[in-house]
Every structure is written in structure tokens, then in C-alpha cells.
């Protein structure tokens, strides 16, 4: 069986981001870009399923400018078999991405699509769900364990508020990864070398018949408010008084 996985190009999690002075977005100039960490978990899960003999082919998808080829290469070095770059200069929003995936699912007929539960740039956390809705497939989001069964189903443990939920989904299904699903590996040197020889197909959204026009307009991007300096209280009484009368969190 085939699995589609995602490798979104995002600002590396180690970079402390800077908001542009015109508040139109985040400064991406000369900033280190990486694979979205939740997508790394998705790639790792697919590669493990392949190593366990449950999956034959892992196809990595990245959507965006040609620079996304770098994230595809990274995924290929981690063990994906081939890549698909959907190249566009458009600002890709969750709905547009979901439509692209719907088209790719029709084209590739995978048994599973594994996406990150969110990307650390927009933190939208909705693409996986949209893909499932648009393609009419089962979804298992926030997965912390995925077991592929022989009867064309998967048993997925989900991290939900207040605990874990175990569900069974019929394949093909859409899965989104949570942090504890696995610990992604690093690429070995031979695999970094091999990645260069693996095939990558490039399509435009038009090739796939998808309209990716943005539907959401960003009005303003601002950095989080700086935290005000704290104070040191002298006594417990003073603390209780401040919590009651200033912060008004106890009564």
C-alpha cells in the first residue's frame, strides 16, 4: 500500500521570528527553513510502517515555491521513496492545501495520508480534517499510536482532552500526528546521498485542476505583547490581598 506524507516548509523552530515593520507578516529573509516538526513525525511514522512491511511506498508532498524541494529532499533522506512538489507562488491556506491533497489522493490512490496535526507557522490545525471532509475519507487526528491491521483498518490512539481515545478507522484514512507518536530519526550519510537520486514530480495547482486562490485575508500580524515585569511580595498576606483585589482571581 501507498502512503502520502507531508513536508511543509516552515521557519525552523530554533529561529526567533521577527514581525515585519509593516505588520504584513513574518520576516522570512535569510531565515533558516525546515520541515514542519509534526510533518517529521508523519514521515517517520510512514517510514516505520514501511520498515515493518505494512507499506510499500512512501510519497512525500510539499506545496509552495520551488524552495520546498529542499524539504522534499530532507524527507527522501529520511526514507521516503519519491516526492511530489506542487509548485505555486500563491499564499497557500489550509483549504487550498486540502484541495490539492484531494486531487493527489485521486491521482495516487493511497491507503493513508499522514499529515502533521498542525504546522508551526500558521498553527491552523485544520488541514487534515479538511482533507478528510473533501475526500470523504475517515479521519483519525492527533494520533499517538497507529496500528495497521490486516483487515484494511487501522487502530489509532488519539490524544484528546483528558486522556486517550482509541478508534478504528477504515482505510483509506487521513491521520494527523501528535507529538508523542514517535521520535523522528536523523538521516544517515548513505541515505542523504541516495535521496538525490530519488524521483520528484512537479505539478502546478492548475495541472491538478485546483483553484488555490486565498479565501482568508490577513489583516495584521503583531508580535505577542511583552510580559510586564513581576513584583516580589513581602508576605503571604500581601500575596492574598493582591490576588483578591488587583488580579481578582480569588475572592
Amino acid at each position, binding site marked *: 500500500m501507498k502512503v502520502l506524507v507531508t513536508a511543509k516548509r516552515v521557519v525552523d523552530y530554533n529561529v526567533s521570528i521577527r514581525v515585519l515593520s509593516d505588520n504584513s507578516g513574518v520576516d522570512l529573509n535569510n531565515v533558516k527553513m*525546515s520541515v514542519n516538526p509534526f510533518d517529521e513525525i508523519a514521515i517517520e511514522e510512514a517510514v516505520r510502517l514501511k520498515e515493518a512491511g505494512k507499506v510499500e511506498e512512501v510519497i512525500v508532498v510539499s506545496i509552495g515555491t520551488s524552495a520546498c524541494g*529542499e524539504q522534499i*529532499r*530532507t524527507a527522501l*533522506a529520511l526514507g521516503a521513496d519519491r516526492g511530489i512538489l506542487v509548485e505555486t507562488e500563491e499564499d497557500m491556506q489550509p483549504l487550498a492545501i486540502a484541495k490539492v491533497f484531494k486531487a493527489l489522493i485521486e491521482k495516487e490512490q493511497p491507503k493513508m495520508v499522514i499529515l502533521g496535526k498542525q504546522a508551526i507557522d500558521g498553527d491552523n490545525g485544520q488541514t487534515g480534517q479538511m482533507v478528510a471532509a473533501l475526500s470523504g475519507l475517515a479521519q483519525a487526528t492527533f494520533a499517538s499510536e497507529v496500528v495497521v491491521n490486516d483487515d484494511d483498518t487501522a487502530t489509532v490512539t488519539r490524544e484528546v482532552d483528558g486522556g486517550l481515545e482509541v478508534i478504528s478507522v477504515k482505510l483509506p484514512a487521513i491521520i494527523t500526528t501528535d507529538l508523542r507518536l514517535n521520535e523522528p530519526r*536523523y*538521516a*544517515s*550519510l*548513505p541515505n*542523504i*546521498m541516495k*535521496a*538525490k537520486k530519488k524521483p520528484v514530480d512537479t505539478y502546478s495547482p492548475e495541472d491538478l485542476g485546483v483553484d488555490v486562490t486565498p479565501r482568508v485575508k490577513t489583516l495584521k500580524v503583531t508580535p505577542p505583547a511583552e510580559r510586564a515585569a513581576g513584583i516580589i511580595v513581602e508576605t503571604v498576606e500581601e500575596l492574598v490581598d493582591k490576588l483578591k483585589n488587583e488580579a481578582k482571581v480569588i475572592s
Partner: protein
Amino acid sequence: MENQDIEEIRQAVRQLCSNYSEDYWLGLDRTGGYPTDFVKELTTSGFLTVLIPEEYGGAGLGLREACVVMEEVCRSGAHAGACHAQMYVMGSVLRHGSDYQKKTYLPKIAAGELRLQSFGVTEPTTGTDTTSLKTVAKKEGDEYVINGQKVWISRIEHSDLMVLLARTTPQSEVSKKTDGLSAFLIDVQAANGNGLTIQPIESMINHHSCELFFDDLRIPADNLLGEEGKGFRVILDGMNAERILIAAECIGDGRYFVDKASAYATNRIVFKRPIGQNQGVQFPIARSYTQVEAAALMVDKAVDLFDAGEPCGAEANIAKLLASEASWQAGDVCMQTHGGFAFAKEYHIERKFRETRLYQIAPISTNLILSFVGEHVLKMPRSY
């Protein structure tokens, strides 16, 4: 921006190293232990085979990739001295070994089954004056018989093979003093206790350096590496790679120190403000950064020449000199920035400070580089 291969290798090595905390290295430093699991992981994931050609099971890449590996190892707070030689000592076999030697040893080195990370050159009585070394190898039938003494031979207890330099023709019988020396591959396990005595030296850093005593050690004549009497060339040919790799390690150390110092200066509050707000604290760190970055450019230049197959003796030496001084100065500034805490082992600064100090002395000391530049680049009179 660096090309993507380099970036992938950098990321992978960084991630690998993050599995070995600085406390791991401190623990080994305390006990004089060897990072067996770290070296094993670095080897099996291919990162120590960078320079071995693909036909022998290596990655067949250039010195640029090798440098990134060593730089990242050092930058992570790890101690590259435990394994860097595995990267380059095999070059002697690759360039000067017979077909048989190459086919026998290189694939096993690439697979991590054979450790060739020890080289025996330095002697107690002759030091830097390498061509005057006194260890002799005498041919008897199909064997060589070795007698003499070596000092500071690192990692020999964690190595299966050693490249040894010994005299086969007395200095008085050769016209050039670099002639009459020969290089040999020594099977350490077989030799140990059978003519070779290994004596660890208690030392400032954890390089597992030892004194070696040869007393009629017999080795098969086939273990000669290259031509008899031309061994100095065998050693010399590997030196540029060694210098550049060491320089890359110093860049890694330097960046480690600058990162640590600037983070500490930003977070440590004294007199109700971060110490790094004082220019007296901030400027030395900024200066260290400029020095490390300048040295990194020289390392880059040397690497480019090396990988293009161009002569790079001067650049390799200059890179090593500048990088080893930059990392040492960054280490000193990092110590100063940390105040008393610099001396607490759990901060790791003093350990890295000791480790990076070596590179102004070994594998070649600063003075000898200056004399090389004076004589060979600036054409001034030879000083020794």
C-alpha cells in the same frame, strides 16, 4: 546559504550529537572513559566514512563534508578528539597502500569493523624534529623488527591498527634527511604484549594518549605502507587534511563558546541588569565572534583548494593557526563571562577550554606553522 548536502549533513550530525548530552562527555572526562557508543553511532550512520571512496564502501565525499561533521561534533559540546583520526588516518592507506592493503582494510574501516585511528610519529627525545626520530625498523627475512619509543600516541587502546613511522636507513646514510623513514601498518592487538608495551599518560584532556615501547616487535614485511624509505611522504600527504579538519573542529569549539557566552551574558543578572549589557562583557564576546568567523573563512578557503586538488599547504596551516587561536580566545572569553561558574564542571566550559587548548600545540604547534609561513610563503631563511 550552504548547499543542501552540507545542510542535511549538518542537521543529521547535530541531531545525532543531541543524543549525547554534555553530561555524557563530562562523565567520560572524569573517568578517562572512551565514548564507545557515540563513536559507534557516528560510524554506523556513515559520518566517519565521508572520505573513503564509494568503491570501498565509504561515502566518497570531500573534505568539506568531513569538516562539517567534525565542526558539528565539537559545536555540540562533544569531544571530537576521541574519533577524528578515524576520518583521516585511513588516507595513508588510500593514497599509499597496495591494492591488497586497500581492499583488505578500507571496506572494513568504512563498515566500522576496523578502527584505524592511531598514528605513531612523535618521540620523546626528538619532538617536532620528526626526521630525527630514533625508532628503527630493521628488515630480517620477510619481517621487520622494530625497536624504539613513541610518546603521546592517542587512541591506541581503542584502535585495531596504527600507522607507525620508523627509520629503516640511518640518517647518516641518506642524502636527504626526509629519506630513509618508512611507514608501517601495525596490528595493535597482535603487537600488544609481544614486543609492544602501551603505557597510558595521565594528561589534561581525555585523548587516551600513551607512551609506546618497542622491544623487538616483529611484523610481517607486507605491512610496509608505500615504498621503503619514503615513509615521510606517506605521513606528510595526510597532513593538509588533518590540519584542515582540526581547524574545522576549532571553529566548532569557537562557535560553542560564543553561543554559550552570549546566552549567559544575556541571562545572568547582576546589579539588576544582564551582565551582557555592560560593554566590557559584551565586546569581548563580539570580538571572539568576529575572530571565529574570520578563521572560518580561511578554513573554507583551504577546504576549497583541497577539494579542487590544488596545493593548499600554506592555507591549511594558516587555517589551523587562526582557528586554534580563535577558539582558544573564545574559550577564554567564555570563561571570563561565566565568572566563578566557569570553574564548575557542570557548566562544561572548563572542559571545553582544556580541550581546545591542545590545538595550538598538536598536531603541530603554532611556532612551526609560523616558521613554515616564514620560510615557504615569505621565502625568508629557514630557521631550523
